[in-house]
Every structure is written in C-alpha cells, then in structure tokens.
C-alpha cells in the first residue's frame, strides 16, 4: 500500500455527533463519533475542532475494518483538548480528514509494536489488523510502557488480548505501588529479553519522541534495518494540508509525509534539537 499522504479533501470541517464518551483515565477519554462511511487507514489522523475554541490533530484509534464508530482518544493537555475531552454525548465536533500517512501493510514476518503512554491509540488499528492476519504472519509482539499502572491505556482490552490472542504482550511502568506484579522500568528494558529475529522483524513505534528515539536506536543495534522501523511523529500542526509549513521537520512536511515515517528517513533529523 502507498503510505504517502492522501490529497487534502477539504478544509471545511464536517460536523459529527458524539455518540459515546468513554473515560479511559483521569483527563483522557475516547470519543466515538457518528461518522457515517468514513474510510481511513490505521495511523492516520483527523483535525478536530470545537467551534470558537480551536482545532487540534488527533489520531484515529478505532478499528478500520470492523465497522465500529470512528473513535478518537484524547488527553486534555491544554485549552483546546480540555474542551474537546469534556464533550458530552449528543454534542457536535468538527472533523477534517483523514490526513497523513498510515502504518504500512502488516508484514509477512514478525511484527513488533512499541507504544508509550497515549501512543497505543494510533497503534490500536494496526494491532487489530495484525491479530486478524496472525495465521499468515509471524510473531506479533506488543510492548507497552507508561507512567504508572493507573495510566495504562485500554487496560481491559489489553488484558483481553493477553488472555485470548496469541500476541506476545508485555507492559511496563515507570513506577508502581507494591501489589503491582508486572514490570517496572523503561520500555527498552522489555526489548532486552525479546529474542528478535532481526532480519525478519518490522517495528511500529508510537509514543513520546525520546522513547521512540531510544527504542529505534536499540532496535537498529539489535540488527533491525532502519528502513523497517516505522515511527509516528507528532509536531504542531495548523492546516494539515501541507500549506502552512507549521509541521516541517527537515525536508518533511509531517502532515503530508507523516505522521508515520521510516526511521531511515528521519533518524538524523530527530537527533537535531533545533528541529
């Protein structure tokens, strides 16, 4: 599949009714929208607006293949996301898109997904696709890291995947209270025990940029080709249609050439603090 950005459809937001709001944790909700037929590929994002408040880029967290409503998982971090995350069922949001590049097609070999914090949301659709393809592909490994046990995104769903699927899922947190019997430590410490078949592994990474940089470096050191390491990069965006330059990273316009990019294409730029 061509993972380059899709041509901008329209700058005009489509009003969509909020069908359901699920609280994931304090300050983070998943909003399901009545979107009608809305084609997208996992990894893409939409521009979400609340009239008179502002507009922000948000990744799509729903399953692209099972007909479930369009879902956006949003964390309130500032003025606009605070208002959007507080919407109630029946209210309306403006949606533009989908925009940007998607995760590549599920590869034949082993697939490693590494997600940090809210980064599990843009990976959810790709993971569900990988589960469906599991008969014909190799291992599906999901490594997830977050701040503390109470901040594990989609915790019930993760537990279900752990129990009911063949995917190898490992979770780690930065700190925990006694009683937590899982891992505590950086997500890269989970990589140490995975015996990866490096030449046969494709990796999808999504989370804080430092986490992705370290993980990508460690994967490359293990022998995974940087052209098979894909990351989802977030930069501030305004138009989302490759016109304003707000999201530029070196030669890339991330609303068009990203958010999903190959590490081989951005590794150098990521190391430059000024970018």
């Amino acid at each position: 599949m061509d993972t380059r950005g899709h041509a901008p459809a329209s700058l005009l937001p489509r009003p969509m009714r909020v069908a359901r709001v699920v609280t994931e944790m304090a300050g983070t909700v998943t909003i399901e929208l009545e979107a009608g037929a809305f084609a997208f590929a996992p990894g893409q994002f939409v521009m979400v607006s609340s009239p008179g408040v502002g507009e922000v880029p948000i990744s799509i967290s729903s399953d692209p293949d099972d007909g479930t409503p369009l879902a956006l998982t949003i964390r309130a971090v500032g003025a606009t996301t605070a208002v959007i995350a507080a919407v109630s069922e029946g209210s309306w949001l403006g949606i533009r898109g989908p925009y940007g590049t998607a995760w590549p097609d599920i590869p034949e070999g082993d697939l490693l997904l590494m997600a940090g914090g809210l980064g599990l949301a843009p990976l959810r659709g790709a993971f569900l696709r990988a589960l469906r393809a599991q008969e014909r592909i190799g291992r599906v490994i999901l490594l997830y890291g977050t701040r503390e046990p109470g901040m594990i995104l989609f915790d019930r769903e993760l537990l279900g995947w752990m129990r009911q699927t063949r995917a190898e899922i490992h979770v780690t947190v930065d700190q925990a209270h006694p009683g937590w019997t899982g891992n505590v430590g950086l997500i890269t410490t989970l990589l140490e025990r995975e015996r990866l078949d490096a030449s046969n592994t494709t990796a999808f990474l999504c989370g804080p940029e430092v986490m992705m940089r370290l993980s990508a470096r460690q994967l490359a050191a293990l022998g995974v080709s940087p052209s098979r390491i894909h990351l989802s990069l977030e930069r501030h965006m305004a138009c989302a249609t490759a016109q304003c330059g707000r999201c530029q990273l070196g030669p890339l316009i991330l609303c068009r050439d990203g958010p999903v990019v190959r590490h081989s294409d951005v590794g150098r730029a990521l190391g430059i603090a000024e970018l």
Partner: protein
Amino acid sequence: MIVHPVEDLIREHALFAETGPEIAGLLASCARNVVFRDGELIFKEGETADRLLLIRSGRAALETSIPGHGNVIIQTVKTGEALGLSWLVPPYLTDFDARAIGTVRAVSFDATCLRAKCESDPRIGYAFYKLMIPPLIGRLRTARIQALNLYEPTADPNPA
C-alpha cells in the same frame, strides 16, 4: 531432584554468557543457590550490601518509601539480570528494599569473598568488573530517562 553445581548455574546465567567457563569456576566458591518466596524481603534499604544476586528465575522489585506516597516500586529486576550492585563501591550500603514478586531463584555471591578474589587476582577482577558495567550503565540510563517523566507533555519549543 537434580542438584546442579553452583558453578553450572553461574555459567548458565545470561550475564556470564560472554565469559569463558574459567571465571565462573573461580568465583563459584563465593556463591550459593538461594530461593525467595513471594513477598519475601531480599534486602533492606540502608543495610550492608553484602550480596550480589544473579536472578535465575522470577522477578524482584526495588522499592523505596516516598513520604506521603508510601512504598513505591522504582524498578523490577528479572531473570537473567543482576540484583544488588551497591556492594561494588564503599560504603557498601543498599539504596533500596528488594522484594520477591513470586518465587525468585538466584545465585547469591558473598560480596566480601568476591571483592577479595578480585583484589587477589586482577585478571579475574577486571573480567568480573567488566561484567558489572553493562547493568550499571543500563540502570543509570534508565534512571535518567525515567527522571524526564517522558509521558507528560513537554512545553512547546516552537510556539505559533
């Protein structure tokens, strides 16, 4: 029940994978096989750091207490890793509590014995300290990144 000589257990441990069998043999007289039950305190913060444990199976939590927050687990150490590195440098005092999560099987080295072996034969000493460097660097790196509180949004370096 099959009883494995402690020398074999050392040699089989991931940390010793790269070294020749000789080092494991020379250090075996400092070592014994130990088992901790779920929840058992392995060592306590502030006590003499008199042991190095090579975890053979299971997981241990490093805990500390933060006023107002109770006890907090700051790291887990798992199969194939080393637990207890404070015996390497004076004043040889542990920085954290270590507690077993589930059953933990380990090879426990007596720290005084290890230091004496390393002092008396610099060749062993060098080889052994080389083994200890990767876990030390790994923990330093991890602690630095965790201190950044990665999962919180950072200030916009490039505001509109």
